[in-house]
């Protein structure tokens, strides 16, 4: 077996796994807005903001503000606020200036060492629980699995 063959097989397996698992998660609205700290949820805030992850102290979460995505860690959770620290911009929507303007407009208090975002729980407009989308996963696995098998037969016939 040549290294190149292993490389092709590896790339093919990664590609296949990606295709199979893409779209396997689904978001289910929680009517009463209640959630547990261990649950993977999406909190929808006013002004096109959302918080993704487990809402618990020291939990790593993703914060989205008008399309820009930040990686952060929850420093504290109270009945009124959720405070994020260690905020790092992952993906910017629009120009840097626009992003800076949005951050300036937000309820962000930046001290000398650690940027911090204070989110008011009173601004939560909705809660969605992130679950496993069984039908979509089954659909993807069967289709891409079948496609992979048929592609394998095609390549095998020409090898």
């Amino acid at each position: 077996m040549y290294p190149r063959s292993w490389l092709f097989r590896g790339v093919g397996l990664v590609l296949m796994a990606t295709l199979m698992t893409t779209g396997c998660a689904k978001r289910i609205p929680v009517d009463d807005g209640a959630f547990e700290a261990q649950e993977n949820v999406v909190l929808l805030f006013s002004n096109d903001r959302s918080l993704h992850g487990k809402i618990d102290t020291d939990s790593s979460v993703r914060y989205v503000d008008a399309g820009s995505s930040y990686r952060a860690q929850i420093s504290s959770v109270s009945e009124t606020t959720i405070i994020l620290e260690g905020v790092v911009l992952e993906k910017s929507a629009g120009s840097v200036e626009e992003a800076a303007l949005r951050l300036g407009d937000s309820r962000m208090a930046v001290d000398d060492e650690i940027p911090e975002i204070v989110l008011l729980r009173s601004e939560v407009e909705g809660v969605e629980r992130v679950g496993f989308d069984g039908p979509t996963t089954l659909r993807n696995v069967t289709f891409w699995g079948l496609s992979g098998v048929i592609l394998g037969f095609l390549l095998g016939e020409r090898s």
Partner: protein
Amino acid sequence: MSRSLFRFLLALTAVVAATPGRAQFESIEIDAGRFGFDTLARLAPNLYYRPFDMLGTRPDARALGMGSAYIAMADDPMAIGWTPSGIAMLEDFTLAVDGLNRSSSDTATGFPRVLQIPQSPELAISSYDSRLKSQTLYGSIAAGVPLIQRGSLKFVGGFSWRRYADVARAEETVQDFLLDQGGGFPVTVADDSKERGSVEAFGPTLALQVAPGISVGGTANFLTGRSRLTASTRVNTGGGGSPPPSTERFTQKYDGFSMDLGATVRLGDRLRLAGRLTPEYTLDVTGGSYEVVSSTGVGTSTIRVFGTLSGYELTIPSLLSLGAAIKPIDRLWLTADYVSQKMGDTGVVYTGAAAQSFQDVDVNWLTFENGPIPDAPGPEVPYADLTQLSFGAEYVLFDKSWGKIPVRFGYRSTELPYLAADSLDYSYRYAHVEAAEDGLPVDELSAFAVAQTIGVRYNGPNGQQPDGTGYSFGASFETDRVTYDLGVDVFSYEETEFYGDSVWDAIFNPNPDEGRRILYDDKGTPITPLGQHPNVVSLDRTVTTIRFSATYNFPGLF
């Protein structure tokens, strides 16, 4: 000839011969040179009597379930294999894949019940099974996407890689022998043919919806592919000491270009008409490397015969397919298709140096000492006109919010596009006849007192065209984005093949008149009537094809 003769020698060695103190034998190599179809027909009939099939390769399990009465229903990327105009119905980027499994069950009649091996007890043939080998194959990978839409005018593009024509025909044969006097070990002789490959097509498709419900399309098929045969013959004596297996190899490569043109008309929601025309095209076939390697027993000589089938251009006649679909009530579609291809007009022209040299090939190993028979420069191939009439039905059994389940049924009547092996295709060459033709004096002809076969002559195809009927069924599961289809087709027909894949050899397919006394008239003309043709085995064959396909929509992807 060679394979079965070698097989006999293997069996003979294993069953009959007790050979202590074997001598050391050298390998024997025979170069058959560059030969043509006449020689191939004598050398390996299994490579000669087979269809060039463009119908069985049409994709989509949905189509198979409807008895292949489908052209007017084709409306997803798989439509590229039916009529390119069908993809004009696509609304989103759509990807489709298709595969199949094919197998057969056969009942053989007409094979000899006893083999008479010189200086040994008779071998009784207790069973003889010959069937198409079960194979799982890819069918098609195709995609289509709307490109431009201006009002009712719509351009849709597609691309496919698909099986275009089947040329492989893998078979397996198992024979059981018993010593007629009840002694010795039972012997099993098994031929296992692994054959892969097909004529494949890849290329773009463009469909245009010229008005609501009316679309035309075309596909450019860049043809490629190769077929590879690796066959082995194994002998199991049950008592150990089985001889080594013999092997046979043959390869060919295909290159060419063809166009598929099609049109679809939708008259309202309840009637559809469609057609497809594949104009005549030419395939360049090269690389016909052939080899047989065998041994007559453990520690004995190895015999290797090798040669090359001359390269040739194969001109495939045009294929016409017409179909209609009608929806008499909600949930029900009824369809009918007609396909015609004048495969009897298939042309073969040898290409390159091969066309000059094959007539000089030394085939003495086929015809013994009496010299070669030159292959005809314009060979005949055993193809016949193809006609297929099929009917299908699709009924939506369930239509719920979570999905839809249509079920399908179909019937077809098909004349397969080739002529089966026939005893009239060959005639024996007799030593006394050829000696007379060579001008041997009358008084010396008396030396040929008995019939002695020195080979066979290929006379051209005279066999029957196999035809049969097929029944099919299938079902789909359709969700919002993905559709899974399953189709099953059971097709039954009768054909013939030479026993042991041999047109003549001394044991498996002997001339029954061998050794008969020859009488001459005063002018030296032989007056003893002799049989002229080898025997064939009849096969009642049922081929089961299972197709599975899936279609995935990607709304808004492009």
